[in-house]
């Protein structure tokens, strides 16, 4: 069974990373380990003009750092992500591939002028982590609005959905796991 590798992309606290381990392990029913041994050069992904970080570049360097890894790799950071055609993204994944990244930046209520809500922030991060990893399992966006694979472009969308897969998406993940093992 392939494992999930959790990789901090600083700036990010270790507390943030460890909080993801158990939820991911139980949702994907697979070993989830943290690898803090590498130090990704995040500056390569910085767009000075936009003051944001290009998540596609981060995906590429993550893949480069772990060429041998059998399972999935999830990078987590607190900086603001973008892809060239969009103003921002919550995360990005290699569809049916191995790597994914998620950002904490836009999941935080304080960004929208609301009081701090650590529990909600954590729930959102788990959902986005599961969502992006879901893409690496070959899943597309799901029409079921409370499935974690439902497309969400706002935090309100994220709050509506659950942190788990609908039956159809769940079956697809299992098929994918069995095909690999």
């Amino acid at each position, binding site marked *: 069974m392939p494992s999930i590798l959790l990789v901090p992309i600083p700036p990010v606290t270790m507390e943030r990373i460890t909080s993801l381990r158990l939820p991911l392990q139980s949702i994907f029913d697979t070993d989830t380990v943290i690898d803090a041994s590498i130090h990704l050069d995040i500056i390569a992904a910085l767009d000075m003009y*936009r003051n944001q970080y290009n998540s*596609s570049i981060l995906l590429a360097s993550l893949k480069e750092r772990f060429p041998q890894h059998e399972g999935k790799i999830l990078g987590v950071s607190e900086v603001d992500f*973008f*892809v*060239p*055609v*969009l*103003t*921002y*993204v919550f995360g*990005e*994944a290699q*569809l049916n591939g191995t790597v994914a990244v998620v950002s904490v930046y836009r999941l935080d209520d304080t960004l929208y002028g609301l009081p701090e809500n650590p529990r909600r922030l954590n729930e959102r991060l788990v959902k986005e982590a599961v969502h992006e990893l879901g*893409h690496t399992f070959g899943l*597309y*966006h799901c029409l079921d609005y409370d499935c974690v694979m439902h*497309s969400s*472009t*706002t935090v309100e969308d994220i709050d509506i959905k659950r942190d788990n897969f609908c039956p159809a998406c769940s079956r697809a993940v299992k098929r994918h796991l069995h095909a690999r093992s």
Partner: protein
Amino acid sequence: METQWDILVVDDEEVMRESLAAWLREDGYAVDTASSGREAIAKTKIKDYAIYFVDLKMPGGIDGIETMMEIKHLHEDTSIIIITAYATVDTAIAAMKEGAQEYIVKPCNPEEISLLVNRIIKVKNLQRENTILRKKLTQQYSFQDIISKNSKMHDIFQLINEIASLRSTVLIHGESGTGKELIARAIHFSGDRSQKPFVSVSCAALAETLLESELFGHEKGAFTGASSQKKGKFELADEGTIFLDEIGDISTKLQMDLLRVLQEKSFYRVGGSEEVHVDVRVIAATNVNLEDAVREGQFRDDLFYRLNVINIILPPLRERREDIPLLAKNFIERLSHELSKNVADISENALKILLDYDWPGNVRELENAVERAIVTCKGRILTEEDFSFLCHNGKRKNGWHAPTNMTLAEAEKEIIAATIHRTNGNIKEAAIILGIDRSTLYDRIKRYGIER
């Protein structure tokens, strides 16, 4: 119903192109990319994309607007979304006037793109459902290749079902072009003779002696040129059905012969002395009123009563106008494919012209009109202009004055040459526009020495 929709992203900037494609792929769309207008047009010729994202500013060759116009020309009902930078928003708005459905300013809010694509796809899904529904409707209205929702026609369909397996003769009355042979075929193929031959003979096409040998065959040496024995249509139709079209045109002698076949179920080949026995169901058709012909002594009454056991009267098209849209769309579907054209539909205004027209030549005339319109049609939808020949019938066409200083042959040569020029030498198309068959057209080309 899950449908895969194709999207093409056209942008010279690789990072823009790839990030948009990746974003759309996560939604489950099949996304292709093109790095120039030229590449986009080439790909359009291979695949029908539901949505295009086209960057407004692309260097070299053709820009976004030109690309869009060319794509629209190839694929009229596609949706084009223009991608633009802030600086060129004005041009993007101009692009909307040229037929772009929307524009997005890059970098774009992800929510905006998702909503936009969802909205367009929702409409496309609805349109597709409508097409499927319309197809189902046509199937519902069709009986053995005959399409109708007219109640008289439906009575006929029911009658056909009831009589299909009988041996009784059938007489079909109907103006020319109403589809009498289709009815005869429907009777044959709905009944228990459907695995046996269906043989069709047009009695008006042949001179009396030829028709006689055509129907009954001849023995070797029966007349000059009869170098061997030949089976007639009655023998060929044994155990099946023979369809005798334009029965009102046959001579008194043939009327006698036919009467004997109907009574005795046997006949002699021309020049023969051996009786040939057959089991053939006879279906005859006429576009003249046979009862009148009987009254005037032109047609034998005993033959008439023999033929008229079951009588079917086909209404002319002008009495079943509700079928015109149904038939027109069916012809478009079939003929567009046969003529290798991309025509898919007909406009409301064009349909109105068809509904208002009187159709003296009935369904066949409608079919010919649709064929002629498809040949000259430039887009994917037949418009009123494509049917202008129906309105101008008998009237002088706008801006055209008949020359008064040339012979008829010269005029004919000019018209044929001009038409061939217009169809780029395509003889099949030219013949359709000219309303003559291809062999006649070849004949004229040779006669007048017209260059192709």
